[in-house]
């Protein structure tokens, strides 16, 4: 752990998750390494099957039953991957909060939002009035209009955007140092998405909370991430500062992704689509998992799995030809 950056709040080192599906097993996460710095937003991006959600869930041990893990999840000098379940539960919801994609499924339909947001303050032994005051303040902070009115509402009485704000308020109630948000705006309309993202970005600035944002949407990432981790078939393809990764990708997959994202600004996204479909970690191609779709493929790519290597300080790529990738 000698080269661990001093500001890293969370340091993921060679994280591996093996799942069984019927008779076959799959290494769904294959030696994932990245770190999340305090006060920064790290984006975990990838398509279906890339392992982005699995990675996020592995950090707080919300994995499917029977999953086998290896590697380290360093959280402030403590390895969460080796920690007891009881200890992980203490960290989760307090030091690390999780916001899920679908608030309607994550919220309890039979309890008022005020009761759910107040759960941690109540467990901290705050008085009834103090809990209520704290919940009202949280509702106000996440931009719910008229908190006095909304505190006693049930989840189904709120709009999708308001429910997601309630989830964020719940996350903030424990005053976490890290928030993991899994596709927090995917289910929302575009005007609501923009507002919820502005809220999340604002939190980081005001509270210094670190954010790990999981998304398939490069547009969202370009907007809010400081650092990017690009995943493909359960491996890290590339990582580095978001601006640098998007402007001058060092992996052909990142480049294709950036060129294929439809934009309201140009009409060029469908000019040269990437062939094929995202690789499945249960049936990962030999060598580089991206090689069947890669325009730069060589014989070496078909047999030898590229390691994630540091090209320049802070920029990593898992491509044999990283130096030859042009924007």
């Amino acid at each position: 752990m000698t080269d661990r950056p001093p500001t890293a709040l969370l340091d993921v080192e060679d994280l591996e998750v093996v799942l069984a599906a019927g008779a076959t097993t799959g290494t769904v996460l294959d030696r994932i390494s990245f770190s999340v710095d305090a006060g920064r937003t790290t984006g975990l991006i990838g398509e279906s099957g890339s392992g982005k959600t699995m990675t996020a869930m592995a950090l707080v041990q919300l994995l499917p039953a029977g999953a086998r893990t290896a590697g380290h999840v360093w959280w402030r000098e403590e390895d969460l991957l080796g920690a007891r379940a009881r200890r992980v539960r203490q960290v989760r919801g307090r030091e690390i909060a999780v916001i899920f994609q679908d608030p309607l499924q994550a919220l309890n339909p039979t309890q008022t939002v005020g009761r759910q947001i107040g759960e941690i303050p109540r467990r901290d032994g705050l008085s009834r009035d103090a809990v209520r005051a704290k919940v009202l303040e949280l509702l106000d902070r996440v931009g719910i209009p008229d908190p006095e009115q909304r505190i006693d509402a049930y989840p189904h009485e709120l709009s999708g955007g308001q429910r997601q704000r309630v989830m964020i308020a719940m996350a903030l109630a424990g005053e976490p140092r890290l928030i993991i948000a899994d596709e927090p705006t995917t289910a929302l309309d575009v005007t609501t998405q923009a507002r919820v993202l502005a809220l999340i970005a604002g939190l980081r600035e005001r509270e210094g909370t670190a954010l790990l944002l999981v998304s398939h949407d490069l547009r969202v990432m370009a907007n809010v991430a400081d650092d990017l981790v690009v995943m493909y078939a359960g491996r890290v393809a590339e990582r580095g500062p978001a601006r640098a990764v998007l402007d001058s990708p060092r992996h052909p997959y990142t480049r294709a992704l950036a060129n294929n994202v439809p934009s309201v600004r140009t009409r060029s996204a469908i000019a040269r689509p990437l062939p094929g479909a995202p690789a499945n970690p249960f049936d990962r191609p030999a060598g580089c998992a991206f090689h069947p779709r890669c325009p730069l493929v060589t014989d070496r790519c078909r047999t030898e799995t590229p390691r994630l290597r540091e090209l320049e300080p802070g920029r990593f790529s898992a491509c044999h030809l990283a130096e030859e990738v042009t924007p």
Partner: protein
Amino acid sequence: MTVLEIRDLRVTYTGRGRRSVRAVDDVSLDVLPGETLALVGESGSGKSTIARCVMGLVRPQAGTITFEGQPLGPVDRRPASAQRGLQMVFQDPGSSLNPRMTVGAIIREAWRTHPAVAPAGDRAEALAAVLADVGLDAGVATRRPSALSGGQQQRVSIARALALAPRLLVCDEAVSALDVSVQSQILRLLVDLRREHELSVLFITHDLAVVRQIADRVAVMRSGELVEQLPADQLFTEPAHPYTRDLLRAAHQLEGAAFDSFDTDTSGEQVS
């Protein structure tokens, strides 16, 4: 002649114990030959209800729908030529393809339903040709939808539609559920097929960035009403209606850029 003409369409849903909701409120639209008309709006704007009326799956309270000069009723009262001339591609191919049938059987079934357009000669050859048209190998014919990727499944849905030589393709969020690298393949395919088969497309989506890639004209919906209708290029450079401007501004914001060339009203982007 317009391919599809919608006049004064109105759909009202009555909720239990609640007042009724006008899902579609006096909407008139035309789809011209060979064009892609994008119907955009947020959830609840009524765009999918219009698609369902066009397909005859929802019966409007008022208004008319005319397809190539022929007035259209509910789907079971439509002449076979109108039924096959109008084909739909749904958002989720996984649930709109019969999981028990092979891809080949799915397409042959379409031909059995509409013998008028079934290939006269060797069906195996015709099947391979339809699959090739959507970029699939002939070998896919023996597989079931569950053995295919999301992108391949959506290609099968498009092949099933194309097998009936349609005049108008209605795509309801047809690429929304796909991974981005696959989404651009399917958009590319739709653009190519439209040209090769002289199709008109009614493309329903919530995503303005996708609209920019493929639409000729755009109709913007909000709460059941048609807000404005304009050429796609114009929507992205000089949207007229304040609501269209709000939508476009939000889309630009999501891409991390301020779009201020027409910035007169910023009320829509305040937090809360």
